[in-house]
C-alpha cells in the first residue's frame, strides 16, 4: 500500500531523509519512531505528496505521490504536524468542509460529522472556532477530518500527543478497527507505550536513516528498551543548582 525506494530529501547540504526504503502492507498499522528532527515529518510530507523528493520514488495506493497528487489526496486522510486548521472555521464547519470537498453528499456528510463529533467528545465544542479551541480539541478536529472521507490510507503525525486518556483510547480503538477493515495507518509518535500497543509494524529512523524495520512481533525486547538501544539513550545529568536555596 505504501512503497518507498531510495527516498531522499536534501535541504542544501543537509540531508533530512537519506535513501529510505520501506514497504507497508494494506491493513497494517505502521508506527514510525525517531527523535525530534530525525526526518519523520519530512517523510510524511513526501508520502502525502506535499514535498517533492530530491531523489527516489514513493508509491501510495499504487500512485506515484509526486506525479499524481490530486488522485492521491482523494484516497488518503492526513493529520498534519501543524494540524491544518483554519482559525475562522468552527469545529463542525471543518468537518462539513471536508465532506463537501471529498465529494460526499450533504446527508452523508452530516451523518458522519455527527458521529465523529459524538465519538470524539467534540459535541459541546462543535460551534467553537478553531482559534478558541484547546490544543486537544484542535487535534481531535484534525483527526476527525482525516477519518471523515473514509480514506484507504491514514497518515497521522503525532496523533496521541496532547489528547486526554479517554480520547486516546477511543482513537486507538478507531484506528485498530479501521486497520481490521483494510485501512492502512502510518503514524508517528513519541508515546512509546501507545505505539507498542497498536503497532503491527515498527520503523525507527535516526538522522534520516532507517535503523529498524520489522513486524511488531519481531522486536527482540520492549519497544522502549529497543528504541533507547538503537535510536538514542537518555543521559540524565544532575543539575546541581536545581533545588538549592535561591541566592
Amino acid at each position, binding site marked *: 500500500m505504501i512503497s518507498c525506494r531510495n527516498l531522499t530529501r536534501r535541504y542544501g547540504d543537509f540531508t533530512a531523509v537519506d535513501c529510505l526504503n520501506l514497504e507497508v502492507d494494506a491493513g497494517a498499522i505502521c508506527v514510525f519512531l525517531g527523535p525530534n528532527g530525525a526526518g519523520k515529518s519530512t517523510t510524511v510530507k513526501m508520502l502525502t505528496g506535499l514535498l517533492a523528493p530530491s531523489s527516489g520514488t514513493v508509491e501510495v495506493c499504487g500512485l506515484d505521490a509526486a506525479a499524481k497528487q490530486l488522485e492521491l489526496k482523494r484516497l488518503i486522510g492526513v493529520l498534519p504536524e*501543524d*494540524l491544518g486548521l483554519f*482559525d*475562522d472555521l468552527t469545529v463542525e464547519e471543518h468537518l462539513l468542509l471536508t465532506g463537501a470537498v471529498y465529494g460526499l453528499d450533504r446527508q452523508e456528510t452530516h451523518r458522519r460529522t455527527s458521529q465523529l463529533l459524538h465519538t470524539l467528545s467534540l459535541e459541546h465544542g462543535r460551534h467553537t472556532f478553531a*482559534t478558541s479551541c484547546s490544543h486537544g480539541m484542535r487535534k481531535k478536529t484534525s483527526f476527525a477530518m482525516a477519518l471523515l472521507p473514509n480514506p484507504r490510507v491514514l497518515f497521522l503525525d503525532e496523533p496521541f500527543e496532547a489528547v486526554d486518556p479517554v480520547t486516546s483510547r477511543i482513537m486507538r480503538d478507531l484506528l485498530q478497527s479501521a486497520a481490521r477493515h483494510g485501512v492502512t495507518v502510518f503514524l508517528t509518535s513519541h508515546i512509546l507505550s501507545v505505539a507498542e500497543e497498536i503497532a503491527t509494524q515498527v520503523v525507527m529512523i535516526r538522522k534520516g536513516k532507517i535503523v529498524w524495520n520489522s513486524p511488531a512481533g519481531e522486536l527482540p525486547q520492549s519497544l522502549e528498551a529497543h528504541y533507547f538501544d538503537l535510536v538514542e539513550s537518555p543521559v540524565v545529568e544532575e543539575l546541581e543548582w536545581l533545588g538549592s536555596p535561591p541566592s
Partner: protein
Amino acid sequence: MARLAAILRALWRAFQRGEKSFASLAGNNFFLVAVLFLGKAGTFLFLIMGLVILFPLSTDPLRKIPPSRLALWPLEKREMWLLRALSPWVNPMTWVIAALALWAVRGSVTVGLWALAAGLFAAGFAISELPLPSGAAMWRRVPHFPGPLDQLIRKNLREMLSTLDFYCALLLSVSSAIYRILGPALPAESFLAMTGLVVVALSSYAQCLFGLDGAGGRSRYRLLPVRGWWILAAKDAAFLLVVAVLVAPLAPLAGLGAAFVALAMGRRPSVEDPRPQTRWRFSAGASPIYGVIEVMLMASAASSIFLTSELIVLPCMAAWAGSLWWYGRRMEEPE
C-alpha cells in the same frame, strides 16, 4: 530594571525579526494614495494619519509576548507599567511619529502635540489591552453559498471582515452613498473617484489573500483534494462579493473591473509570498512599487470602463481568469 531591560531587548529582537514596519507601511495602497492626495496638507494631518493609519498598521510590540507568559513573569506593578510605556518605542513607527511631532510643533507645545501624546499613550496602554474579537467570532453568521466551497468562502469572508481595510472601504462607501442621497447633485465622475478609493482601500488585501490563514490553514489547502484554482476562486469570491456590495451605490461595473485587476495583480505575492497579516490592522501588500503599479492599472481599468466602454471589463476579467489558471497550477506543485 535589569528584568525590564532584558524583556525590552527580547521584544526589540522579536519585533525586528517578525515585523517590517516600514515595508508594511509603504505596502498599503490606501496609505500610498492618501499620501498622494494629502501632499499639500498640513503636518498635523499627517500626524493624525500616523496615529490612525500607521500605528494600527504596525503591530503593537507587547503583543509579541504571549499574555500567559507575561502573566507568569515575576514583574512588579511598577515594572509592568514601565513596560507598557516603553514597549511602543520598540516600534520604529513610534519614533517616526515622534520626530514628525517635534518637527511640526518646532518647540512650542500645541494641541496637536497633546493629541499625539494622548495617542501614543493610548497605543502603549490600550491597544495591548483591548479585547479585540477574533474576527471569526464577530462574523459567525455570514451567509452560505452553493457548492462544495461554501465553508471556504465563508471563512474567507470572515477573514476579510477582520481587517481594517474593509472598515476603511465601508466608511468611504457608506459616506459616499449618504452624500449621494442627501447632498447636492454631483457630477457622475465623482462617483468614479469614490469607487476607485473604495477598491484601493481593499486592494492591498488582494496581495495577501492567504495572510490570515496561518501556517495550519495553508497546509490544509495543500491537503484538500481540489484544484488550485478552486482555492483561489474561493478567495476571489469573497473579495468580489465585498467589492460588489461596497461599490453598488457608486460605479459598480468600474469597481468590479478594478477589483478583477487588483486580484490579477495581487496573485503573485498572494501565492508565492503569503505574508502573514494581523487581524484588526491594515493589510501590508508586497512592496510600494508593486502597489503603485497595481493602483495605476486599477485606476486605468476603472476609468476606461466608466468613461469609454463597459466592455473593457471583459479584458479585466480575462486577466483575472488567466491569473487564476496560472497560479492555480503553481499551487498544486509540491514544495
